[in-house]
Structures are given as structure tokens and as C-alpha cells.
């Protein structure tokens, strides 16, 4: 079983906030982490490998420093890490990202499964998984909460729906995106950490994966960001003053109709 796990390095979202003085993003001290959903995809891949044998390749697209998450993936059980990195990828939307990852996966050769987290916490689009499957021309299922059985070239799993779940059977090769319920990711082992420290991370450029210049980065992206703004505050606000008790009294007076 050869499994490719797609991993994104993201800013730790809970630390990202707007500086009220300058109205810019406060970046100081914002750590880069492995996208939490991808951690579950990786864990599932490693578990499948442990049961069925094979290889787990961690794949990431990003700037050179994204190498860190690939090393982390190795410490959690991935066999090797591949980073696709090229200045030409800058500005990629989900279409161009899917295309780039698609080319990268094909460059890595045949595979049985591609696993992705349901979405990345910085963009929350959940589009790259299905987009990548479409690029690779393999069947896919999103929001997998449990893999029930893997028998030969067939896979039974549970896919989360808004009102419950569907039990789905699909053939291998395929792509799955997973939700957090699927497993509890392990803590990196000591051996894993030592292996990760020494590991060689393969870096592939746009040319290495045979990507067409008009399909990558901003040029390859059908969408454009045309405006970025801070959300407008509501106009009618009243901030009470005084002691806690005085503030509560004023509030209760105003909330009359709800009480």
C-alpha cells in the first residue's frame, strides 16, 4: 500500500489576531504548525501502513520553511517527505494548488491512496482534496470519519453527512479527506524524532513536476482577491461603565423585552 498524505503548514490560527491600533495582523509570536486535520490524515495513513505494510509519503506545497512540517510528519511515522516549492507557486488558489499537487503526486509514481485533512485551518475552503482527486482522475470521498475495511482493491468507509453518515465502498486507488473523529494522532516517538532530524527532504520545483507555467501560482488561478478589509463594526453600540453591579443593572434595563 503506497499512501501519499498531503500536509500544509499553517499559522496557528488561535494566535492570529488583528492589532486594534494599526489594524494589521499581529504576526509576532504566531507559530507555524502542521494543519490539525492533516495530522489525522497522517495518523490514519501510518495506521494503514502498520496493518497492511507499504509506504507513507508526506507531501507539502509551500515555501522552503514548510520542510519543518514534513520532518514532523516523519517523526509521526511517515517514511519520507517531499516538498514542492517554487516562487512560481505564489498566489495559487485552490485550483492551482490542486493542479500543482496533482502533478507532484504523479511525479512520485503510482499510489494506492491519497489522504488529506478535510480542510486547512487558514483558508477553511475544503476544496483542495476534491480538486486534487479530480486532477488525478481517481474517485474520492470527503469527510471520512472511519475506515471500516480494506480488502484487496476495495475500501469500505464511513463518510460524515450533515444528518448522520453514509457507508461508502470505493475502489483503490482513491483519495480521501478525513475529519478529526477518525482517530487520535500519536505523539511523535523518540525514534521518529531522531529519524526526522536526519531525514533528507526531497524538494521539487515547478519544472521537476512538469507543471505548466499558466496553470500554477497566481497566473494559473481562476480566482483573484480584489479587496481585503476589516469587518466594519456595528454602529449602535453602547459600552456601559461603572461597577459590575451598575453595568448589570443598565443591561437588564435594556434587555427588558427578552426577559
Amino acid at each position, binding site marked *: 500500500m503506497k499512501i501519499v498524505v498531503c500536509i500544509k503548514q499553517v499559522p496557528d490560527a488561535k494566535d492570529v489576531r488583528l492589532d486594534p491600533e494599526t489594524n494589521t495582523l499581529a504576526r509576532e509570536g504566531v507559530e507555524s504548525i502542521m494543519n490539525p486535520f492533516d495530522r489525522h490524515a497522517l495518523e490514519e495513513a501510518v495506521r494503514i501502513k502498520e496493518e497492511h505494510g507499504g509506504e507513507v509519503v508526506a507531501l507539502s506545497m509551500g515555501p522552503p520553511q514548510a520542510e519543518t512540517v514534513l520532518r514532523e510528519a516523519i517523526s509521526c511515522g511517515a517514511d519520507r517527505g517531499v516538498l514542492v516549492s517554487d516562487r512560481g507557486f505564489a498566489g495559487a488558489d485552490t485550483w492551482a494548488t490542486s493542479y500543482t499537487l496533482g502533478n507532484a503526486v504523479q511525479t512520485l509514481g503510482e499510489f494506492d491512496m491519497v489522504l488529506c485533512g478535510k480542510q486547512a485551518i487558514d483558508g477553511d475552503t475544503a476544496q483542495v482534496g476534491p480538486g486534487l482527486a479530480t486532477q488525478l482522475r481517481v474517485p474520492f470521498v470527503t469527510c471520512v470519519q472511519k475506515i471500516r475495511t480494506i480488502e484487496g482493491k476495495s475500501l469500505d468507509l464511513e463518510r460524515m453527512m450533515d444528518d448522520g453518515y453514509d457507508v461508502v465502498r470505493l475502489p483503490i486507488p482513491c483519495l480521501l479527506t478525513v475529519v478529526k473523529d477518525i482517530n487520535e494522532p*500519536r505523539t511523535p516517538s523518540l*525514534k521518529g524524532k531522531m529519524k526526522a532530524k536526519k531525514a533528507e527532504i526531497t524538494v521539487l520545483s515547478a519544472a521537476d513536476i512538469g507543471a505548466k507555467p499558466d496553470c500554477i501560482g497566481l497566473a494559473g488561478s481562476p480566482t483573484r482577491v480584489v479587496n481585503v478589509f476589516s469587518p466594519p463594526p456595528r454602529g449602535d453600540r453602547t459600552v456601559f461603565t461603572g461597577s459590575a453591579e451598575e453595568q448589570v443593572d443598565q443591561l437588564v434595563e435594556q434587555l427588558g423585552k427578552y426577559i
Partner: protein
Amino acid sequence: MDYLLTEEQQMIKETAREITEKKVIPMRAELDERNAFPTEILQDMAKADLFGIFVPEEYGGFGGGCLDIVLALEEMARGCVGVATSYAANALGIFPVLISGSKEQKEKYLPDIAQGKRWAAFGLTESNAGSDASGIQTTAVLDGDEWVLNGTKQWITNGGEAQVYTIIAMTDPSKGPRGATMFVVEDGDPGFSYGKKEDKMGIRASATRELIMQDCRIPKDRMIGRRGTGFITVMKTLDISRPGIASLGLGLGQAALDEAVTYAKQRVQFGKPIIAFQAMQHMLADMAIQVEAARALIYAAAKHIDNNPKNMSKASSMCKVFATDMAMKVTTDAVQVLGGYGYMKEYPVEKMMRDAKILQIYEGTNQIQRNVIGQELNKEYS
């Protein structure tokens, strides 16, 4: 303070801390209340390779030394001394095989221990043999190709949970201390059973049971080392294990200090956080001094032991006494800093204070440790 740890040592600390934060701290109150053994947490530790730290590389471990174990235990004890004790007792239980075992015995047990497939426990204490180990009444008699063991071991940490037990028994009672020999007894051996689980004041996540041997028959090759060397093996084992107990005190003291400072910054009385009061600052300062001094002494002792000196007993005993007395003092002070809240089970310092007490008692009471130090001084100055 920077102790100039190697990259590997930092990884050990980091890994132990991660497990502690993710798995131990969220569970500790429940384990304590239910008197429950932390099987799952220990399995997680095994998956993270923490059980391999003290196993030589040729048996699938990391070949780490005393300092490496000390670092791991310190981090674990910051979460729960009960859980950390279960880990420490596993190391203690397998040290006799590491120190005096045959190649075959090492091949048989060490890889499983390194992977966490089997756990170990150490069987020394008996009802009449506590501080005075010469009172051991368990006997082992050779009968053809088998040893036959009879006797009861008391308060054995990991008893009933471990699969591999290193047991000391008298093979030649007439020879006194030179008549004791160590054996490996395995879970399921005929005539081997467990007594009741003890209900303890603290470290309630750890399991403490009697080991009962009634005509317990084991193969001849389960003897560890030569006949009559049991006490030497026990002494060597305790020499390298004591800094681990010291480290439990260190981690616990650090955790209590952390809780106390955090609380003192939040708690407002007379219009300001209580940390602003000098009485409080002095108390916290004394706690911090003691914690750091214990750390420096333990790390130094562990490095000393890792150098394999001829005599390690004094250093080993010194750090055990200092750090565990410190833990008792600092946890008691932490409860004082938290005042009424500290006395309630809602806050973790109450458990910490209960957990601290055993550290002054087990693996040689602190009085016995002082005896050891005193005897060593007597020798040194002769």
C-alpha cells in the same frame, strides 16, 4: 537555568512533556480518585519509545543512562507522580537483568521492555524486611531443573500489572546477606499469584500489591547472576534507580511551584494580586531556590553515575534525600499559597502534597539514605 543538555536529551524531555501535557494532566484527577492504573497512558509512552530510553541499543533501546531517565521522569512527575512511579518501577524492575542478567535473559526480556510489550516490577520488600533487607524470608530451593520459591512480597509497585518480576529470595539462609539470589518470575508461573491492591494516601494511579509465591516453580535459567549475589545486584540497582526517585520529587516540586506562582499572580486580595506581597514573594522564592538546587544536584549525580564510578551510593542517596524532602516542603507550601483553595480537590496541589509523602519513604527511607551517606563519610575520612 541551562544545563547544556544534548539534542537527544532535549528530545527525551520534549517527548515526555508532550505525553504528560496531552495524556497525563487531563486524566490525573480521575486516576487519583478511581485508584486506577494508567494502562493506556503507559501504552502511549511505549509507542513514543520512552520505555526504550534505558535499554541498550543492541536490544532495541536508546542506550541512555541515568541522566536520560531522570529527564524523562522529571517531566512525567510534573503531571502525576502516580503515573511516573509506574514508569519508574518498570525501570527498577528490569535493572537487575540489565546489571547482572545473562545474554540470554537480556535477549529474552529487554526488547519486550523497550517496546512496552511487557512491564516489569521489582520484588524486594516483605512484611518483616523493609529498611532492614536482611529480614527477607522468601526462600528458593533448587529441585532438579527448577527453582521452587515460597514467600510473600509486600507493597510491590506494578504488582499484578507487570508481566516480569525480579524477585530476591534466600537460597542459603545460613549465609545471611550472601545467601540471597535474584530470580525472574513471570506472570502465569505455577504457584505465583497476587494479593489485594493497596488503598493508598497518594500516588493512587500506581498499583501496589502483594506477590504470593506458593511452591512457585520456575526454570533453572531464571536465576539472575550467580547464586548468592542477590544483595549486590539489589544495591547496584538501587544506586542507579534512586536519582529517578529524586527526579520524581523534582518534577513534583516544579509543578507545585508552577501552580503556586500562577495562582499568586491571579488571586487578588486587599486590591492587588497576592504575589505583590513580600511574605508571598519570599515563600515563592524559597520554593524556587529549593527546586533549582535539587535539579542541579540530581543532574550532577546522574552524570556522575553515568561515568560509572566505583562508588555511586553517596551521590545517589544525597540527591534522593534532598529532592524528596524538597518535594514535601514545596508541595506543602504550595497548598499554603493557595490557602483554602489549595486544600480542596478542585486544585491539583492537594494531590501533589499527598503524592509527595511517599517519595520520602519508598526506595529506602530518607533516614536510611542518611545512614548510607553517613557510612560513606565515615569510610572517606578513615
